[in-house]
């Protein structure tokens, strides 16, 4: 899923202070699951903004609304009335959701209430970790299902760097070294020989390095 976290209330106040009628718009998909922008967070952030408004005399009128998916026009439609009524939208969707709303309402200021962080999973209660960099050409088959492009701080494709020790990443000592995980996993499934192969430089063209990305499915465009 897409993992995001909330911007701070002072930052949101700074972003919104030129407006009065503000719609805090939540999203019922990824950001609900990662506890950043669902119904509960819409309510919490709205309350915090109302308090800040009262304390600082900002005159905010906060409305709350949640749709199932902000990145999908069919669902955005459900928020049409609420969006029409407000001066500005504070979207608690991911970066894709914010832009989908902004594209749909060219005359309406739409602001991001979250910092969209990465594609990841819930590893344990309250801990989300990045697992996929969406590089556009998946190499997981070669590395026992553990991604060195995403999880190695140096994107090393041919083994760990010299800083890998005691299973920890040198850059984030609270995280495991991806290469130690790859080694253990490949050994466990009898595929350690894969690591003997010298991997050529990666073709980054399918990643963000290749420019804005789009997938066109002609079979779905008829």
């Amino acid at each position, binding site marked *: 899923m897409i993992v995001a976290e909330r911007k701070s209330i002072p930052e949101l106040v700074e972003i919104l202070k030129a407006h009065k009628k503000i719609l805090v718009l939540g999203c019922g998909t990824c950001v609900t699951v990662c506890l950043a922008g669902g119904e509960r967070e819409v309510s919490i952030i709205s309350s915090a903004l109302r308090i800040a408004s009262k304390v600082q005399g900002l005159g905010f009128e906060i409305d709350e609304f949640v749709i199932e998916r902000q990145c999908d026009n069919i669902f955005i439609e459900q928020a049409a009335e609420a969006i029409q009524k407000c001066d500005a939208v504070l979207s608690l969707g991911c970066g894709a959701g914010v832009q989908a709303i902004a594209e749909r309402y060219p005359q309406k200021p739409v602001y991001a209430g979250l910092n969209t962080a990465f594609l990841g999973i819930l590893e344990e209660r309250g801990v989300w970790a990045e697992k996929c960099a969406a590089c556009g050409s998946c190499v997981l088959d070669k590395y026992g299902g553990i991604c060195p492009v995403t999880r190695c*701080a*140096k*994107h*090393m*494709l*041919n*083994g*760990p*760097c*010299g*800083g*890998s*020790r*005691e299973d*920890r990443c*040198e*850059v984030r*000592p609270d995280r495991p070294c991806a*290469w*130690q995980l790859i*080694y253990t996993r490949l050994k466990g499934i009898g595929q*350690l020989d894969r*690591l*003997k192969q*010298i*991997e*050529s*430089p*990666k073709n*980054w063209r399918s990643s963000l390095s290749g420019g804005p990305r789009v997938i066109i499915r002609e079979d779905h465009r008829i």
Partner: protein
Amino acid sequence: MKPDSRLAGKLGGKDFIFTAEYLPLAGTDASFVEACTKSFGNRLTAVNVADNHYGVAMSSLAASVALNRAGIEPVYQVVTRDRNRIAIQSDLLGAAFLGIKNVLCLSGFHQTLIDCPQAANVFDIDSIQLVNLVKTMNGGLLLDGTKIQGEFSMLIGAVANPYMKPLELNILRLSKKAAAGANFIQTQAVFDVELFKQWLEAARKEGITEKTAILAGVLPLKSAVQGQKLLDTHTDFHIPAEVLNRIKAAGDEAAQKKEGSKIAIEIAKKLKAMPGLRGVHILSGGNEAVVPDLIAAI
């Protein structure tokens, strides 16, 4: 074309080899050339010139060329952290044009561990791919198959951390560096000689020491505080507590520095007696003046 540097010549012989390193400073002052000449002179086969080791510094290419002109053979260090394959190949062509004949291929300290934590990194290629890239260029071609106009020939070096665990993964990676084209390997600082011996023996058993010359890193610590700082900030240092305690017990700043050099000499002497080891690489960066006494004593 075969690399024809002085270091390449020595690797082909039987002599025990000494190299050291110079860390360029964040400036344009030319006095480093004279200082390096004084510290290194003809005592060493070659001197590594670090690539933005702990933050922004004079480019390793410029400093390498300056030392080369002063008669000190440089090992031009290139990290993959800051440059993509376009910039690296371009700089390598420039380096060859300017007379550089040795290159050391590294990924480099991650920028969050040095003085520029807010910078974006590159890591377009990794260190083994860089080794392989230089080998390809030695064959007269760029990565995309473009023919290099003129001669290109570099002796290829890489690095290894003898203390990275597990040993099987460590040796597998070392073996890949040799297979990718590394002519020599310089290691991280050796303090635990016994553990290093086990690593070298594992490398020898895999036939790696036949393919690539291993030079063991020896770091003359300036103080116990420096050693502790290295341990705290970089996991690739393995410095046993007794080493730091010994330096600390030596007393004041000057005494600690002297003790650090003494330990380095003791380690280097033990390393010199190790079969399969081709030389010692003195990690003298920031402490270059210590080299003459060290070499004289080893």
